[in-house]
């Protein structure tokens, strides 16, 4: 027994020693970049070499996120010098662990759309400290050290534009129902706040939000919530929704109740199905572009960062640290002109 034990101990010690040695080597290769100052170019991607990009996105629990993965992959395929890997997190908590694994694989650049910006800030900072520049998509990390560059839409701006649109359409008088996104995330809160601030400013108390419920960016939930609200409220003048995919369920509820003529509806995102409905006219009056193509753009930005280059149309030699995509309003007037920009999250 004793000899087996000693043998086992020796083996463990050897493994341990090897492990320590291996880890020790990694630290030396890590290299210098920690801070996000625009001055430091990325390591790893020599101009002319391949840029390895790893992307982490949340689980596809609604249409928009599904398209994010599609657009990111499409963008990567455009280039010969990009080695691309995309992982979908199994759930909100799993994403942090997945990113840790990606960090160990030492990609040149990391693209992250965090399920929740604040929760994933620590792991993003870790990546930055390990010398891997991070491109943050859509949902903001809570510190500037967590990303080299950010691309996002303007959620507050969506609320503002929708507020202005409805204020004008309804002449600052009426009952508005708000179907929100997933409760508690910044995307939802900003869209709610932008809308509330704007109608207060423009109309005082003229436009009243008579019901406000989360639809979770999901058509099922949108359907059921709207069905219940339609029972509760006899007079609805407008419905402000946070998402086109979710709005499909809301629209179905309104149609099933035969109340399409009573109100108008706005969405957000820019799905081709929404474009179709806007073109038809009637209930679906407007949507705001918040396209999943920003994930594709993020991949492009990541590649440029990996190559140590900037945007070709700008004079500055490096990729800007924040790109905000404006929420272009799409109504019956301009829907045909903007057709190319819609994303198919619907219609099959």
């Amino acid at each position, binding site marked *: 027994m004793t000899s087996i034990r000693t043998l086992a101990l020796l083996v463990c010690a050897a493994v341990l020693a090897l492990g320590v040695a291996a880890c020790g080597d990694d630290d030396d290769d890590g290299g210098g970049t920690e801070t996000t100052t625009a001055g430091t170019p990325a390591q790893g991607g020599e101009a002319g070499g391949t840029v390895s990009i790893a992307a982490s996105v949340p689980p596809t629990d609604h249409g928009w996120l599904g398209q994010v993965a*599609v657009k990111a992959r499409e963008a990567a395929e455009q280039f010969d010098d990009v080695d691309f890997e995309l992982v979908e997190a199994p759930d909100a908590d799993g994403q942090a662990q997945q990113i840790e694994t990606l960090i160990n694989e030492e990609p040149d650049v990391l693209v992250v759309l965090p399920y929740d910006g604040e929760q994933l800030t620590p792991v993003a900072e870790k990546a930055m400290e390990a010398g891997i520049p991070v491109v943050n998509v859509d949902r903001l990390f809570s510190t500037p050290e967590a990303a080299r560059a950010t691309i996002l839409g303007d959620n507050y701006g969506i609320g503002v534009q929708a507020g202005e649109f409805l204020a004008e359409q309804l002449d600052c008088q009426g009952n508005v129902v708000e179907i929100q996104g997933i409760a508690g995330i910044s995307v939802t809160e900003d869209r709610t706040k932008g809308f509330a601030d704007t109608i207060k400013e423009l109309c005082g108390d003229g436009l009243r939000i008579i*019901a406000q419920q*989360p639809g*979770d960016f999901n058509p*099922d939930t949108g359907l059921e919530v709207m069905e*219940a*609200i339609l*029972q*509760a409220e006899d007079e609805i003048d407008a419905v402000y929704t946070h998402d086109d995919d979710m709005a499909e369920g809301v629209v179905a509820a309104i149609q099933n109740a035969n109340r399409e003529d009573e109100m108008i509806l706005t969405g957000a995102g820019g799905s081709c199905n929404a474009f179709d409905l806007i073109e038809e006219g009637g209930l679906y009056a407007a949507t705001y572009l918040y396209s999943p193509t920003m994930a594709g753009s993020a991949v492009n930005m990541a590649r440029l960062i990996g190559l140590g280059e900037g945007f070709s149309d700008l004079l500055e030699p490096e990729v800007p640290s924040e790109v905000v995509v404006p929420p272009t309003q799409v109504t019956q007037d301009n829907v045909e002109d903007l057709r190319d920009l819609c994303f198919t999250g619907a219609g*099959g």
Partner: protein
Amino acid sequence: MSTPPAERATVSERLQSAGSLRDLLGMPSGVKLQEFALVGVVLVLILVGAVLEPDSFPTTDNFRAILTQASVVGVIAIGMTFVIATAGIDLSVGSVLAASGIAGGLVVDEGTAAFVLAAMGFGLLLGMVNAGAIAYGRVVPFIATLAMFAIARGLALLMSDKEPISLLTADGVRWFGTGEIATIPVSVVIFLAVAIGGWVLLNRTRYGRYVVAVGGNREAARIAGVPVRRIILSVYCLTGLLAGLAAVLLSARLASASPVSGNLLELDAIGAVVIGGTSLAGGRATIFGTFLGVLVFAIIFNLLTQLNLATEWQQIVKGVIILGAVLIQRPERI
């Protein structure tokens, strides 16, 4: 154990008198008591709703809306009752619903019948996979259906290319969601038919007795000649089939087959079954209880949304009502 004759008489006397006291009061035992308590909960909720929202809650229109919404979870919960009665569980029903809906959506151009058959058929197929894994593979139901929970969701996304399939022009399919049979919404008719069918199956057939026996004491059932393996196979096939049916009802109302449908639906179904009085440990089941449980959830959702309660309060209130509903029931035996 042996008790001296004198004490034995006293014990049996006491038992007898207790029995007759229950009979005297007309009080049923065990599951039946819980069902009555749950009826009380439903009535209280309706009363509260009528008081708080007198114009919009206690209306025929609203009750139709509540029952229509309840029908999707309801149909699944009836099947879940059978599964739980065998001391099993099916965590995959929400994902199977999504995958079935997509399966139907892929062939919807061939007609309404094609849609319905494809949806229910695919649901049945996935249910059979569960059944096989559990009955033959000897995989624990929790694990087997957890795996299917993930697989079915993946299939739904894969088969649909992550995009919902529009059913806007499929009037035949939409009839399931918006049509009526003798002024009752089709979804509700189907739900009631499934509930009644489930009740008859559980309470008036040998199959139903077998199901409960398998859950109550598997070894005893096996020794008594109950075809245990076949019974277990059948209940998971049943939930798969009913998930496919639920997919038809939901997609019809949504006018779209969506790959992200049915998220966490299994929790609602299981919750409804359990607060209805069916025991998670198996051996005791009630279809009427499940029906009431489904109704309770649907009424709560409708009422809290009508009251425009902020979502954070809705979660808390829902949890408290559920806890209350279970505590009121106070079963005799765990």
